[in-house]
């Protein structure tokens, strides 16, 4: 059961990197993107469905591995940077067409996306006991992979063709490596089986609904004209 829940945690984190990776990559690319309306329009319908993967991952951490939660407070600054950057990026998307000037929010989207990438570098490096400069470098690596993934996504969505699997897989590697490294430690710190049993019984019936909703998003918005809400 512990292994099952670790699998869920890993899937959610890896999924977050592979999916939200292209949103953040497109955000990072904004300052050098000519047609920003179309770029943001392309990721628009996916952002809400992508970012919840991390919120769900945090939920699994609290529910199934509460003893591992110290990982957050042990990397306090990185987590604060992650959250503030994430919030700023989201606000940029919601407000871009509506308040102040577009350019202002577009810069904030790019800065927020960069902040999220750097925070992940610091957080993952911090968990493995590496130093601050190494964390920054790791964050830059993550940003580079996300930029690659973001470009591929824009090509795929706006001009059609090719696959997202390769760059998506690459974008997930920076999360996969530490997850493999920490697997033993996390699994050993799972909640008692009474808690895990309850969680399993409650959540399992909804897994097909969750998967279905995600697939629906891709089928509905993978093609056709680019919407203009964000």
């Amino acid at each position, binding site marked *: 059961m512990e292994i099952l829940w670790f699998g869920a945690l890993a899937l959610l984190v890896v999924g977050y990197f592979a999916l939200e990776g292209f949103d953040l990559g497109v955000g990072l690319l904004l300052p050098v993107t000519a047609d920003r309306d179309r770029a943001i329009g392309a990721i628009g319908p996916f*952002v809400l469905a992508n970012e*919840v993967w991390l919120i769900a991952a945090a*939920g699994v951490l609290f529910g199934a591995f*509460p003893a591992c939660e*110290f990982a957050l407070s042990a990397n*306090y600054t990185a987590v604060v940077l992650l959250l503030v950057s994430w919030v700023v990026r989201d606000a940029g998307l919601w407000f871009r067409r509506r308040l102040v000037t577009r350019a202002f929010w577009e810069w904030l989207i790019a800065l927020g996306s960069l902040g999220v990438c750097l925070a992940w570098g610091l957080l993952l490096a911090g968990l493995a006991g590496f130093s601050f400069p190494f964390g920054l470098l790791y964050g830059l690596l993550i940003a580079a992979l996300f930029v690659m993934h973001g470009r591929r996504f824009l090509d795929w969505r706006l001009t059609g063709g090719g696959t997202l699997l390769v760059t998506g897989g690459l974008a997930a590697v920076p999360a996969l490596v530490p997850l493999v490294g920490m697997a033993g430690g996390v699994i050993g710190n799972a909640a008692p089986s009474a808690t895990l049993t309850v969680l399993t019984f409650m959540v399992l019936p909804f897994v097909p*609904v969750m998967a279905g*909703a995600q697939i629906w998003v891709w089928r509905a918005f993978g093609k056709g004209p680019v919407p*203009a809400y964000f």
Partner: protein
Amino acid sequence: MDVLDLARLQFAVTGSLHFLFVVLTLGLAPLVAIMHTRYARTGTTLDERMTRFWGQIYVTNYALGIVTGIVMEFQFGLSWSGLTHYAGDVFGAPLAMETLIAFFLESTFLGLWIFGWHRLPKWLHVATIWLVTLTAYASAFWIMVANSFLQHPAGAVRDGDVLRLDDFGALLTNPSLSMALPHVLSAGLTVGGFVVMGASAYHLFRKTPDQELFSRSLRMGIWTSFIGTMMVVGFGFAQFGPVTSVQPGKFADRPLAAFGLGFMIMLGHLLQLVALLLVVVVKWAPRWRFLHPLILLVTPLPFAAAILGWIAREEGRQPWMIWERLKVADALTPGLTEAQITLSFAGFVGVLTLLAVADYLLISRIIRRGPDQIALGEKPAPAPALTF
């Protein structure tokens, strides 16, 4: 202020900001779903404009609900790891349920609703907003399960120096939950009803072109506020039984809690009276112009009542994090430094407050500009010729 005070203040401020947006989400979601269903049935322009106008307000409000919610979730891990250490095996379960089966779906379906205009089949599109409503209510349920556990740790047993889950059913039938959940949901309806009334009263008073749309909205708002206030007061008084039995002295010993409770009840009676009077004259209310400024004047009050309610519930819990089990001071992350908490306080409270103000400015601008300039559900511009 020391580290503990700052951590508490940070949670209180971000939590209050979060709830201001959540409570309107809870009230508006079913109303927008009803409007959209009506539009799907009649296909009239009036119903379409009404759905898109209130839908835009709903979505704009939701944006801040999400970003404040993100910060709430992670704060447990950041500054209250003592709570997780002591009771994570129990307390974490409802939080996990909230994120996995409620919020994950709510956010995904909301994306489908926002971007699904002119794209999803009509009735499937309507289904997404009902699913958003359902999952929003499910979120409220699980969060209230978690909160009720702090008020009254039902379903858990002590095992050494930590709590373990013993009876999941008891967690769900917690006496601290059974009346509080409907109280919160009806608070949502009250807030939603008053906001719909207030915005409609503004347009009716200004005699803007959309008189029919706002007459209908005003009536819908009046009925919603009437139902909402009746239920919020009813379930409010019904809370006293369970609260005094599981948390005796909750309001007697804490002046701030008693203050919150007293003013909430006062506002509750006032709002109930307003809604009752309006429902009597609901037929004429759209035409009676003298009413409209008065309605606008009371629109913020349900928000205030909702925050006062949380002050009562949470201040009354002090000094306990988990009633008679774990002190708030012992739930603080060990070794949390002043520099850390100051940093996160400035980041979270500063950024979220600015964004909340911006969001309310935006909502009031959407209301002022009226149903003519609504981005949500706009017909897409004809696709430009492909250029490479």
